[in-house]
């Protein structure tokens, strides 16, 4: 049993949790959502174990580095932060329906890591540029931020859903939390995510400065993280303009998450190269 197996199993546990949350919401079965919570907790435990084991395995192989160095590892950490933050919110606010919109994201992230043929789950040694504690801080901060934005994305979708005007009494919408609460939660998460994204960009800059002698070089990955930052800065300021709470914020939050995804996956499709590989 190695870490990759555990993470593959965790993928299915998350899938089951997501399915149960959706089932509980659609058929209004609160009991099922309690089960879903326990499944999510088990998934989180598996995810944690997978990450820790990977860390130990890398020491056994003689490479000895924290498991935050490639796409596979970052996706495993991403789903971990999503579920951890989500469970925290659930315990704090006592609403389980949000899980129907959020746990599937953790499932998708981990499924992509485990199943995509383009992503290698091999533990690789660190190339010289990646040997830095700033890198660890950078990856952790970025993905905690991305996790918060992922949940804000789920909540924004719920908000837009809730706002939809329907003639008939739609029970699905009734079970969703109040629009005001969703908006407030969205804002809280975006503040939290913005702080961590800022820390992520800053630690990335400090790392770049120690490795290449420049803290900012406008390479596509850096630029896209800045674009994401601009979008969430707009979200924070939009609340100050009258009438911009609610729907515009939800739309911007979805746009912000699209930018997150592009920073993460899309940049590789662009011309030019991000500096990781080159030296």
């Amino acid at each position: 049993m190695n870490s990759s197996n555990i993470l593959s199993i965790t993928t299915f546990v998350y899938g089951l949790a997501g399915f149960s949350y959706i089932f509980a919401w659609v058929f209004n079965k609160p009991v099922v959502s309690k089960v879903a919570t326990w499944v999510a907790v088990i998934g989180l435990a598996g995810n944690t174990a997978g990450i820790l084991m990977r860390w130990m395995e890398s020491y056994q192989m003689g490479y000895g580095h924290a498991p935050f160095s490639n796409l596979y590892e970052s996706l495993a950490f991403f789903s971990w932060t999503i579920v951890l933050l989500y469970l925290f919110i659930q315990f704090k606010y006592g609403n389980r329906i949000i899980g129907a919109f959020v746990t599937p994201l953790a499932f998708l992230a981990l499924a992509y890591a485990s199943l995509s043929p383009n992503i290698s789950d091999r533990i690789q040694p660190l190339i010289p540029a990646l040997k830095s504690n700033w890198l660890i801080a950078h990856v952790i901060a970025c993905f905690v931020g991305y996790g918060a934005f992922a949940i804000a994305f789920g909540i924004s979708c719920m908000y837009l859903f809730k706002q939809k005007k329907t003639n008939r009494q739609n029970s699905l919408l009734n079970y969703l939390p109040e629009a005001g609460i969703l908006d407030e939660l969205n804002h809280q998460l975006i503040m939290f995510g913005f702080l961590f994204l800022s820390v992520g960009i800053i630690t990335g800059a400090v790392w770049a400065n120690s490795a290449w002698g420049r803290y900012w070089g406008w390479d596509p990955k850096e630029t896209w993280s800045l674009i994401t930052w601009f979008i969430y800065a707009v979200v924070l300021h939009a609340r100050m303009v009258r009438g911009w709470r609610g729907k515009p914020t939800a739309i911007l939050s979805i746009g912000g998450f699209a930018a997150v995804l592009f920073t993460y996956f899309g940049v590789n499709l662009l011309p030019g190269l991000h500096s990781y590989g080159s030296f």
Partner: protein
Amino acid sequence: MPKQETSADFFSKTWDFFASVRLTIVLLLTLAATSIIGTLIPQNEDPAAYFKAFGQFLYRLFNILGLYDMYHSWWFQMLLILLTTNIIVCSLDRISANRRILFVRHPSFRLNRFRNIKNKEEFVVDEDPEQLKASCQTFIARRFRHHAIETTDNGFAVFGEKGRWTRFGVYTVHLSVIILLIGGLVGSIFGFDGFVNIAEGESARVIHLRNTNKTISLDFVVRCDDFNVSFYETGAPKEYRSSLTILEQGREVLKKDIIVNDPLRYKGISLYQSSYGNLPSDEAILGFTSRKTGMVYRRKAVIGQPVVLPEKLGTFVLKEYRSSADFKGHNIGEAFIGTLTREAGSAVQIILPLRFPSFDKMRRGDVTIGVIEHLPRFYTGLQVNRDPGVGIVYTGFILMIVGCYVTFFMSHQQICVEVDKRGTTTRVTVAGTANKNKLAMQARVAKIAQRLGSQARRT
């Protein structure tokens, strides 16, 4: 004087324009949208490559718009200047509008404000207000930075306040953005960004600047004593290490091994490990086999330095290294070329291919020469930078993180505990306000009421 009026009018209109958050939103979205362009068009490449990719018309158009170095183009810089103005004007505007809240030494409390708060916590105790006064006051004093007490008709009210300073969090964030931009500007005006390649054992003083053909001479000399590269079993690089020495007027002043992520800094200039390469080799361990005695003599040979052989076999000089040598029309790969001078005075040229160690046997001389070990030579590629703006930028970084934390997670809180006699019992009312996160403040008020209640019952 109508003329003055219009200029004042113009000023206030401009001020309002720059104080608006709508402008911020427009600017930030414009920055986000235009930044995408520079990620689609690779920046700072050879003009010929752009011409080939885009064709004549688009090439010209993009050139005029500065899209090949767009983050330094006039219009992008213009957007940044507008944003800076926006931040400054807006912050000044808000600070002056809120100065009565922001700059007070001793806050004053108005009881009516707290009485009008909708969500209050209440409980009833048997003690007289006078009995509760001291404990209530210390309770608030311990938890709030400022406190005050006021006597009312049937009892008293204790006020507490803390976190007024957190209102400056937003301005700290805004200031940090400006500091970052200033730091970037300082770096681009007073700094430079260059590189130099130094062969092992050699020194350099002059460096080349990137993106131009200019060179700069440093105040000191850098010597590369050694360069090493190591690999994992997978073939991936593990470490690049250069041993550098800084010399001033011929004196060694600093020695350091640098690796990626651990540069050398001296007099505001940083030297980073950035690349490496192979150089023509200039030394080798050679084996000289005497035909007469069969003895093998192992000698280190350096290009240009004669090696005197025992048994009066002559003197050998390594002349040069060729990365691909020819022998009678055949390419024999990497080889050293040397000359052997006999005691008698006649000299022969000798080819020593690295791939064929016993090649020299063919010559059938008194001595056969072969390369036992070839010592490869590297040069280290150093990134040489000076950026006096880094300190400013890092200050901005810290201010931004601290400012965001304070703004998002701390608040300015006020609380009022009113205690008054109602017939035979005493009623205690707790009410609080905060400038942010009002839900959390309500929970806090409830908790304080609960604590106060249990404390009163104990006495």
